[in-house]
């Protein structure tokens, strides 16, 4: 297994599961399950035990490994020099499990669906661009930007609304962009996170070849997960493109007055997506957008930015739901944290976070108190 030579170095001191100020537990799977085995230190020790044949692969071992949301809180808080590799180690262990063919059925089904359908929803590729019907968004044909939407933005009802909001704003601001529609392929970020390195490479190479064939130079992503894959993993496979997340684009467009805003009065708290924040260090752009809307009162949650608590959808859990369910599910914990601020709106910048938190608000019966809106949806409400 990759990283096998460092997996014994965990001291299981537990800094990895806390926030930076120690105010709370911040590892989503530990917070839900509460056995030490579900914390990063537990995973490290169990991976080593598994590699040494001291424990066997089992349903519980799989749950422990695949409930990691790859949110990178452990990477942020671990005090050791190998901290940067913690999530990579967990993914490497999943990779080893995939290679040995012993993974949870929900993970297997997700991977099979991507392999055979190109998306986890088992929908035809022809449906992929349907979200853009009725909008002025065009097919990609050499425009300055490719607007990459991804599986959730293309097929999920909530995701489609957000894709439309973003697409409309960008075209309204005069950004030259196009979409791939039925030619778009899965970015593979979750495939990689779930340990199917071969399938990820296949998807990435396919996408890179298509982007190159079409002459794509610049990409705007809807989903921070795609943003992460394009930015961090594609260059190693020959895919060098200029990548930005749509919130970065919106921040720039608002600053240059290309999106004139009027008032939208609301108390808003912003939920940092792990793959935009901790994984890629972008905390400011979404806040700049929200901060520039007259009437928006931005209130931070206690756990924000580097200490943001994951919605529980990362690392493939959005699709597998291994980490979901019950009042200690991360999304419900996060909604309660948002409620504590007195906000009316939870602003998100990721279609996966939007869906996770929407469902959590229903589970918490807070529909009359809290609303989840994507940053683009809030900007849309403030457009003159």
């Amino acid at each position, binding site marked *: 297994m990759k990283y096998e030579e460092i997996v014994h170095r*965990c001291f299981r*001191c537990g800094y990895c599961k806390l926030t930076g*100020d120690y105010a709370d537990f911040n590892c989503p799977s530990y917070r839900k399950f509460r*056995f030490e085995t579900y914390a990063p230190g537990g995973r490290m020790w169990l991976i080593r035990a598994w590699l040494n044949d001291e*424990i*066997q692969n089992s349903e519980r071992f799989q749950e422990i490994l695949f409930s990691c949301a790859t949110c990178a809180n452990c990477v942020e808080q671990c*005090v050791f020099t190998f901290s940067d590799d913690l999530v990579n180690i967990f993914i490497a262990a999943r990779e080893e499990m995939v290679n040995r063919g012993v993974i949870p059925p929900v993970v297997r089904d997700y991977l099979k669906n991507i392999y055979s359908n190109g998306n986890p929803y088992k929908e035809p590729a022809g449906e992929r661009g349907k979200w853009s019907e009725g909008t002025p968004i065009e097919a990609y044909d050499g425009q300055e930007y490719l607007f990459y939407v991804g599986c959730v933005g293309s097929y999920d009802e909530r995701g489609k609304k957000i894709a439309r909001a973003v697409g409309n704003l960008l075209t309204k601001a005069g950004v030259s962009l196009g979409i791939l529609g039925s030619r778009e392929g899965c970015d593979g970020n979750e495939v990689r996170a779930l340990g199917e390195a071969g399938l990820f490479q296949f998807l990435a190479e396919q996408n890179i070849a298509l982007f190159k064939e079409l002459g794509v130079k610049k990409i705007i992503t809807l989903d921070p997960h795609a943003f992460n894959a394009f930015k961090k993993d594609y260059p190693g496979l020959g895919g060098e493109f200029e990548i930005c997340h749509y919130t970065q684009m919106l921040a720039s467009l608002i600053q240059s007055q290309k999106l004139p805003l009027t008032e939208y009065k609301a108390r808003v708290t912003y939920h940092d997506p792990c793959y935009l924040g901790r994984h890629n260090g972008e905390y400011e752009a979404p806040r700049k957008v929200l901060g520039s809307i007259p009437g928006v009162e931005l209130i931070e949650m206690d756990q924000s930015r580097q200490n943001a608590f994951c919605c529980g959808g990362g690392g493939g859990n959005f699709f597998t739901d291994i980490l979901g369910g*019950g009042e200690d599910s991360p999304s419900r914990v996060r909604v309660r944290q948002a409620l504590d601020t007195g906000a009316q709106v939870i602003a998100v910048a990721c279609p996966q976070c939007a869906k996770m938190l929407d469902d959590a608000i229903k589970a918490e019966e807070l529909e009359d108190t809290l609303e989840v809106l994507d940053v683009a949806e809030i900007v849309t409400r403030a457009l003159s």
Partner: protein
Amino acid sequence: MKDVTLSLAEVVGEKYVSSQPEEAYFYARDPGLMPAHKPDYVVLPKTVEEIQRIVRLANKEKIPIVPMGAGMSLSGLVIPLKGGIVIDMKRMNKIIEVNEKARYVIVEGGTSHGLLKAYLEKRYPRLRHSIPDSPATATIAANVMIHGQGRLSQQYGFNSDMVAGLEIVLPSGDICKIGSCSLSPEWFSKGAPLPDLSGLFLGWFGATGIISKVALKLYPKKRMRDVEIFVTDREDLVPDIIYELTHTEMVEDINIFAQPLPMIFKDNHHIVICVTGDTDEELEFKKKMIFDALDRFIKSKDGGFMSVAPAMKETFLEMPQKSASTFADVTKGGGFEYSGPIIVVERYPECARKLEELATRYALKYNVTARVIGRGHSMMFAFSFTFNRADRDMMDRTKEALHEASEYALASGGVFWKPTIDEQRMAIERMDPNTRNLIKMIKKDLDPNGIMNPGNWEVNVDEI
């Protein structure tokens, strides 16, 4: 007998009990060198009532119970030597009450030091507690149970001296309150003016009861903290330097470290002096008093204050000090352990020399760490070695070096702090026979079925 897993699930809920191999593996060991012993069950209670029901069940079925905080003692105190139920206390982490004017806090038994620190910083910025340099996950109850030390130990003694009250689940399952809280709603004293019953529980590693609530004394938090480091290459002078420092009554905390690497540290003994103040004038006055107190060592060229770079200063002022954990990776190996006897300060020089000798002989990386407790009444001296978890030979050498350090510490008048089972055995054998009998009597009377963390503080050595 009904299936124990089912019975435990009826108490805490199915998802908070496990008899699975994964939990059995992890909870069988801690980061130190003690051999693993698997628990049969791990359970995560949320309330004191749940603990009571677990204990009653265990008593009825005669199943051992091991209460566990963060499991950071390094000396295996929460390894279930005889199997049974590990009670992971960390779901019980509420801060129940802060009495600001009486300066105490009441917390549940699984509350971590980190959580209390964050809570006080946010809500009571003029109050603080004695935070140890163990990881921030270390729990307050377990820390006082092992007589831990922290940032205020130079002024106020062991962290267990700062306990202001306890709620204990006895081996019978009954709840017992210890201290003023036994007859008053206020938790201001663990003993005086009553008979101090806290001694029946503090230092026993859960062998006489489970701490479900603990009240801890809080102390004034000054607005400013600073650190100075006095360096001497004459270890024989360290006790005198400490004597002068403690005489000033100006110091928050005194720690000493010595290590061979980096090379500029070699043969030096670094006395880390923390001071606090509410104003620049107060801080400067204290520093001047400290400087004057050590003036004779400077004049004789036996020592001096080193300049402390900002990054280094930050490291020493950090609470808890994370570098105490990162020592575990000095050999890129994930482990360290220390024998940490409490000794009189005069023993520092010989212990420092012994540690260096052991490290050389066993070819190990080492670190001297010592913390002054009280006004020099004693100090914790850590014979500390780091090891690589992937190197069996190094782990064996570390074990041997630690055993030798323990024997040395005991022979030179030291008393073990959070002793391993080996050290407990050595201590029991050497102990005054009447004291030993008293321990046996107390344990037998409180826990006739011997279910509470069995193996620990067993007077019959063959039972360990």
